């Protein structure tokens, strides 16, 4: 948890920098609404970047086929004239009404004041998968960690790192110099992680500086949130204990609705109910677009999210500029839009 920074004032906060959040910058920008975007991932693109960057998408209008990462690249190019600000790798912590608008805070200490909030969080926030071990919740934060804030906290400790991806290998290399003992637990002797990290890990094992165990997490033993040992299981179902003060499991990410669930918005099966004229939620000034919203006939398509962004922007403009009359304009012919886009 960082110290809060000085508040930033803007017009709109967009939660989620996936394709729909990015396109919302464009539609809001045409109406002179400036945006800050917050995303829990350290890169833009949402699911397009996290789940399927190389996969082609076939239902983006006028693009018979476009890869997810190219789509994100094109959107970034399209919104550049509006100079959006990104807060990446930050998790939204709180949202409160303030000064006739909203104050949003993040776990990195960002404080953003805005007149409207647009939730474009897709399937929710990406959060680490929790291994299905009895009682694991009781150890989380004290002995079980899904990310590392301070390497020093592991000095002199026996640490078990479970998984075979880059996160697991990265933390092996970061913790071997400080921990008393590091054991990497993985189900097979092949790794999805980058070969360089794997080779360096094998060298550390040969030098006796760490251990590698073949197996999967099976159970935790300890008391009062303090872990004593991890019980691992081999392919033949036999088990063995590994002494451990801490366990770091790295099994990828899953999507959860996250903090948005606590904002008192009307929900329908983990999605936010909206009015299809304005894409407003049940709370005035908070909008929801893209996969995270629900309305009769909803289709979870990127193109639906784009349409929702356009209509939402009209409604947001009435809040940001209550006295301004919106004149509908086409990007092809409007000279004032050309000026905004820098193409005049």
């Amino acid at each position, binding site marked *: 948890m960082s110290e809060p920074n000085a508040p930033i004032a803007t017009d709109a906060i967009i939660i989620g920098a996936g394709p729909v959040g990015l396109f919302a910058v464009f539609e809001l920008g045409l109406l002179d609404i400036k945006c800050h975007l917050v995303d829990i991932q350290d890169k833009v693109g949402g699911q397009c970047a996290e*789940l*399927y960057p190389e996969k082609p998408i076939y239902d983006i209008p006028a693009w018979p086929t476009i890869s997810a990462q190219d789509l994100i690249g094109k959107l970034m190019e399209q919104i550049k004239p509006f100079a959006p600000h990104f807060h990446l790798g930050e998790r939204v912590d709180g949202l409160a009404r303030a000064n006739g608008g909203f104050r949003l805070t993040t776990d990195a200490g960002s404080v953003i004041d805005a007149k409207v909030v647009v939730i474009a969080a897709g*399937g929710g926030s990406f959060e680490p998968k929790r291994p*299905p071990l009895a009682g694991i919740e009781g150890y989380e934060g004290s002995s079980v960690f899904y990310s590392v804030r301070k390497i020093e906290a592991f000095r002199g400790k026996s640490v078990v790192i479970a998984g075979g991806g880059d996160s697991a290998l990265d933390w092996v290399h970061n913790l071997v110099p400080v921990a008393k003992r590091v054991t990497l637990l993985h*189900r097979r002797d092949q790794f999805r992680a980058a070969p360089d990290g794997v080779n360096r890990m094998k060298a550390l094992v040969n030098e006796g500086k760490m251990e590698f165990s073949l197996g*999967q997490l099976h159970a935790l033993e300890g008391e009062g949130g303090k872990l004593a040992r991890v019980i691992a299981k081999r392919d033949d179902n036999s088990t063995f204990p590994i002494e451990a003060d801490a366990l770091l499991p790295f099994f*990828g990410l*899953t*999507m*959860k609705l996250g903090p948005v669930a606590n904002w008192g918005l009307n929900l329908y099966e983990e999605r936010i109910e909206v009015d299809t004229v304005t894409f407003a939620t049940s709370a005035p000034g908070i909008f929801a677009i893209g996969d995270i919203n629900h309305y009769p006939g909803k289709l979870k398509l990127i193109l639906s999210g784009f349409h929702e962004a356009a209509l939402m922007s009209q409604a947001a403009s009435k809040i940001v500029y209550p006295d301004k009359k919106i004149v509908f304009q086409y990007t092809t012919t409007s000279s004032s839009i050309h000026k905004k886009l820098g193409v005049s």
Partner: protein
Amino acid sequence: MPKITYIEPDGTARTVEAEIGATVMETALKNDVPGIVAECGGACSCATCHVYVDEAFAAKIEPPSPMEEDMLDFAFEVKPNSRLSCQIKVTDALDGLIVRTPGYQGR
């Protein structure tokens, strides 16, 4: 059409008809079979459509690609017959296929 039987951890079995060329994951979703999440929609990038393939059918299915093997690292309770159901395409040879769903798909 080939039939696929999905068995839940508590023993509940559902047999459904599958279209040739569809995946075992898609067939489950289309028929409201519980226990398969398929968060990424079939891109082999989330490991939430994990199933155990009945031994009798193991030889009739192409072995997992390196990408699928890698993705299985993000599943739990992985066994030698573990597969991601989005990577198994239905063929006539798979008529009668039995897959068991795990208790937990990571969410």
